């Protein structure tokens, strides 16, 4: 074979497709632009909300003739406006804490049942029903709470008062059970689906080999859950609870429908009264003048800050034991 032809037959050396230099493909560029754009839009929206809330809040707080943090009143009209968020902060936090105390154990129980105990034929319909609970509009929960829960809880509260009334927080003077505790129960039912379904997903992701490690040591089903499933799912359950807590803190219509609001902080959680940020804004906003709106926006800012703090705390809890998380194995 002729030597020169054989050289000319070979494809040209890939000088034109050098590996150095920037070879940006249009698809990459478009995708980069889209994703970067989305990120920027998010930041802009967040900044705009924060700026708006802060600006209107400063107007309100500087016009407040009383201490914004400690005043037990909400009078944002006239020449001497006096209003404070103490009752709202108390009511919001207390009702949400009650909701989480009830909802998280129940949700973890349901999630474990679906993921580790229920026969497969029962597990998926049950999961479906739980997800369905999340689809019920909050005003429907509110109506159910006001028309069913409130009339039926009086008896329970009377019983609690008889045995635990001496504690103060569980005393009950009678009347409609439109109290923070009732709100807490209602919120618990409302956050149950989100906490349950996220927890269930996490429990289902526990690697088979971790469960087998416990089984092979002679662990019973409960011990497998305690040794492998719960530790692995811990950070997921915390995240799920935070999602639920976010919903509980911000829930508006259901709370506004059930609660009979006032501006007192009572020792008893069962007696009617109290208020939450979202409920207060919803019930006062339509009748408020511009300054009244500013005052409500200032309370909204406080809710925003509380939610941020709660989320930050949750992240800290998750991060603190990161080296023990299942992620690195």
């Amino acid at each position: 074979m002729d030597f020169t032809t054989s050289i000319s037959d070979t494809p040209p050396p890939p000088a034109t497709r050098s590996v150095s230099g920037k070879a940006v493909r249009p698809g990459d560029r478009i995708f980069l632009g889209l994703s970067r754009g989305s990120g920027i839009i998010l930041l802009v929206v967040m900044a705009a909300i924060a700026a708006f809330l802060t600006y209107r809040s400063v107007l309100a707080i500087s016009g407040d003739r009383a201490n914004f943090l400690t005043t037990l009143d909400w009078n944002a009209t006239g020449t001497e406006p006096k209003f404070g968020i103490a009752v709202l902060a108390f009511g919001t936090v207390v009702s949400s804490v009650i909701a989480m105390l009830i909802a998280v154990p129940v949700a973890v129980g349901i999630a474990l049942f679906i993921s580790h105990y229920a026969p497969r034929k029962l597990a998926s319909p049950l999961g479906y029903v739980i997800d369905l609970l999340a689809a019920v509009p909050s005003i429907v929960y509110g109506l159910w709470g006001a028309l069913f829960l409130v009339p039926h809880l009086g008896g329970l509260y009377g019983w609690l008062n008889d045995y635990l009334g001496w504690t103060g927080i569980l005393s009950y003077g009678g009347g409609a059970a439109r109290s923070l505790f009732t709100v807490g129960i209602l919120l618990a039912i409302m956050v149950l689906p989100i906490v349950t379904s996220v927890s269930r997903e996490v429990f289902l992701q526990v690697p088979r080999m971790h469960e087998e490690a416990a089984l092979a040591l002679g662990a019973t089903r409960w011990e497998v859950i305690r040794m492998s499933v719960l530790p692995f799912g811990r950070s997921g359950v915390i995240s799920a609870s935070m999602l639920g807590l976010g919903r509980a803190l911000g829930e508006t219509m259901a709370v506004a429908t059930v609660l009979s609001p006032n501006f007192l902080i009572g020792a008893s959680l069962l007696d009617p009264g109290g208020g939450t940020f979202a409920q207060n804004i919803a019930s006062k906003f339509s009748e408020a003048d511009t300054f009244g709106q500013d005052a409500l926006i200032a309370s909204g800012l406080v809710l925003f800050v509380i939610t941020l703090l709660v989320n930050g705390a949750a992240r800290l809890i998750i991060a603190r034991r990161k080296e023990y998380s299942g992620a690195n194995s």
Partner: protein
Amino acid sequence: MAKRIDVSGLNAYYGAHKAIDDISMSIEPRSVTAFIGPSGCGKSTFLRTLNRMHEVTPGGRVDGKVLLDDEDLYGPGVDPVAVRRTVGMVFQRPNPFPTMSIFDNVAAGLRLNGSHKKSRLKDVVEKSLRGANLWNEVKDRLNKPGSGLSGGQQQRLCIARAIAVEPQVLLMDEPCSALDPISTLAIEDLIGELKERFTIVIVTHNMQQAARVSDRTAFFNLAAVGKPGKLIEIDETERIFSNPSVQATEDYISGRFG
């Protein structure tokens, strides 16, 4: 405390699929028995029937007899949880509990058995880690998570965890297949020491490993894909690797297979 195992007429199923067919064999105490054979021949399934781990797989069921000394593991009224406390297991991939420290990993089995006394736990953890040739490497960081160790160390940690409860039998399901040669050598040396105290059964894909560590070797095979696996023969390791009595074994050992 090492017991012998006598298996007779054992079948295992995954749902309707029969995975192993009519296996009978005896496993001597204080010896290493290796299971070799091609993938899908049922050797791992068979291993998992020896501590009733097969039935935790959905659809998994077993019939036949597995006698541990004179007690039938599949007899009526036998609690599988109790069986697994007597017959320990080490898995293919190291699986220390990721949320537990090194100490807690080794102590996990003891705590399951109800020992909570600090001093006793400490003694047993040290003894088990020494037994697994890991003590010198981890004694200064017992409170660090087990998942921070190297793969070979994690596997020895799993062995320490398994022997901490003083089982009668130790089952090992390809314990070195995820490890590098040096870690593998460490585990093989360890197996040689552990057989003084335990009855060891090891599944391996590595025939040199079977030849190095085992006293007896069982060869499993299957007629075709989808057919149940069968025990072809079990004999002294030396004989299996030099002069097996079945032609299929010789073909497999010498690589003239399939």
